[in-house]
């Protein structure tokens, strides 16, 4: 597997629809300071920085330029710094970037930062529309919500999933978010509330969709030698990877099965030597931007057979007191600063393994899974973190 790498510190920011109290560099500084404090180290110990954001939501293209001084203090400004951007998986790709920076042997302690200020955009969907190929598909107004709605239509049609199943996912995640001081949406939402919420793009209602959030996240990764010196509770990277599926949504009409994610999961489980994910994974933070995706992720990640993901939500298997809690943080459904979200999944998984997840801590976590998806539902990243070194 290569050089052992662990996450030794995590920094989150409070997310909201618009963090009016801070300019962009201040938001970054908040995340970075929190991570350095968590790892109990100073800037001078950081050997390199990896930065991710999904351009161009923030009203500033390539915001890492404006933000660089907030990531690295003045005396250390000529450090190696690399920008990674891969759509919705940006945060996950940034974590992977940090992992390979340390894994290469060139750097011992690396800061990975990801951010998004969707709150500075007046119409986020307008920006997302520019992801759609301007030659054929942009004129049809395709975007994230409509693609996810296609996933839901298919899952209903082929597997008999219902609107109530989606509402149960929403209710679970909203309840979890109440325990997460950094979450954006913090409100009580029952299944009935969810079923009454406004229909956006059939069958997805407002409660089935993630918000647009301002927020940032930073994690610190270290080599084995440094990790053991820095903390008693490192979160070791046991498996990591990415997969790239075709961007042409029309090529992948089997919307009900997330084949590319299933393929990635097989690869990463093999690397991590996981044979029974349901039994061996203690908590999961997959990227649930739309409720139906959580059910699809149960299936693609091997927690349930294809078409049987609904049983997990119906039986409470993925609730906080269930066998395999999913999205204890409330997940993407309650907090989505898009470019940062994938890194927040990794950060939340790390906090669970490190035993630092406060009120949202799942008891006895050894192994945690973090995932993100992006692009035309074609990109996926995955990381498996563990209390024990691989």
């Amino acid at each position, binding site marked *: 597997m290569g050089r052992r790498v662990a996450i030794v510190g995590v920094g989150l920011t409070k997310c909201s629809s618009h963090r009016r109290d801070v300019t962009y560099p201040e938001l970054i500084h908040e995340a970075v300071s929190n991570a350095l404090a968590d790892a109990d180290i100073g800037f001078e110990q950081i050997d390199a920085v990896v930065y991710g954001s999904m351009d161009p939501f923030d009203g500033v293209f390539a915001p890492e330029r404006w933000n660089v001084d907030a990531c690295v203090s003045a005396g250390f400004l000529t450090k190696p710094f690399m920008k990674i951007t891969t759509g919705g998986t940006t945060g996950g790709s940034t974590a992977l970037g940090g992992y390979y920076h340390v894994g290469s042997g060139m750097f011992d302690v690396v800061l990975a930062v990801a951010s998004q200020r969707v709150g500075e955009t007046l119409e986020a969907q307008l920006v997302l529309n520019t992801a759609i190929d301007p030659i*054929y598909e942009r*004129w*049809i*107004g395709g975007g994230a*919500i409509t693609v996810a709605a296609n996933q839901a239509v298919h899952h209903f049609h082929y597997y008999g999933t219902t609107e109530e199943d989606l509402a149960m996912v929403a209710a679970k995640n909203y309840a979890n978010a109440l325990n997460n001081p950094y979450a954006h949406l913090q409100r009580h939402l029952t299944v009935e509330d969810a079923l009454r919420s406004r229909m956006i793009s059939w069958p997805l209602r407002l409660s089935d969709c993630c918000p647009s959030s301002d927020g940032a996240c930073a994690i610190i990764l270290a080599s084995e030698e440094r990790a053991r010196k820095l903390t008693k509770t490192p979160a070791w990277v046991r498996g990591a990877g990415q997969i790239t599926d075709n961007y042409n949504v*029309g090529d992948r009409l089997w919307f009900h099965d997330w084949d590319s994610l299933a393929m990635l999961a097989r690869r990463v489980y093999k690397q991590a030597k996981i044979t029974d994910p349901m039994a061996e994974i203690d908590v999961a933070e997959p990227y649930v931007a739309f409720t139906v995706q959580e059910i699809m992720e149960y299936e693609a990640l091997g927690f349930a057979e294809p078409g049987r993901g609904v049983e997990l939500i119906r039986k409470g298997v993925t609730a906080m007191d269930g066998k395999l809690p999913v999205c204890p943080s409330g997940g993407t459904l309650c907090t989505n600063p898009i470019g940062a979200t994938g890194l927040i999944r990794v950060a939340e998984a790390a906090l669970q393994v490190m035993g630092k997840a406060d009120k949202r801590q799942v008891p006895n976590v050894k192994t945690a899974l973090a995932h993100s998806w992006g692009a035309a539902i074609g990109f996926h990243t995955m990381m498996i973190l563990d209390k024990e070194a691989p």
Partner: protein
Amino acid sequence: MTQEEEILIMPGAWNLPFRHTAGRFASRFFRELRDNQKIYGVRCPRCRRVLVPPRPLCERCFASPDEWVEVSHQGTLGAFTICYVPFMGLPPPPVAMIMVVLDGADTGLQHLLGGVDLSDPEKSRDLVKIGMRVEAVWREQRRGEIMDIQHFKPI
């Protein structure tokens, strides 16, 4: 909030014009829509899939498609959603965005559904279904763009 604490909000907008080339493949596809009211796909020489709309690369085979294949104006609905809130770039709601696999094609073409009354959400569940047959409805004055097909209607 006192005057000393007032946070100012600065407006901003990007006005970034682009000139996007349609390239060889899309240009021919659009010219055929405009001039001959025909819909074409291209076939990958290795996997033999007919890709609609045409594109310069079959990413699975990493090969350039070289054979132009005319496909039908009729096809099957592979996926859809019905939007109830206004989205930039879409006609006012309610509007159905669809993926149609034209007869002869191996991939779905993203487009809009027309000729269906979507005003009653409950009734719409019966009117729009995966697997239903649809046909292209053409615009009177065609310009060489995807909206030369105005929408697809059920048949």
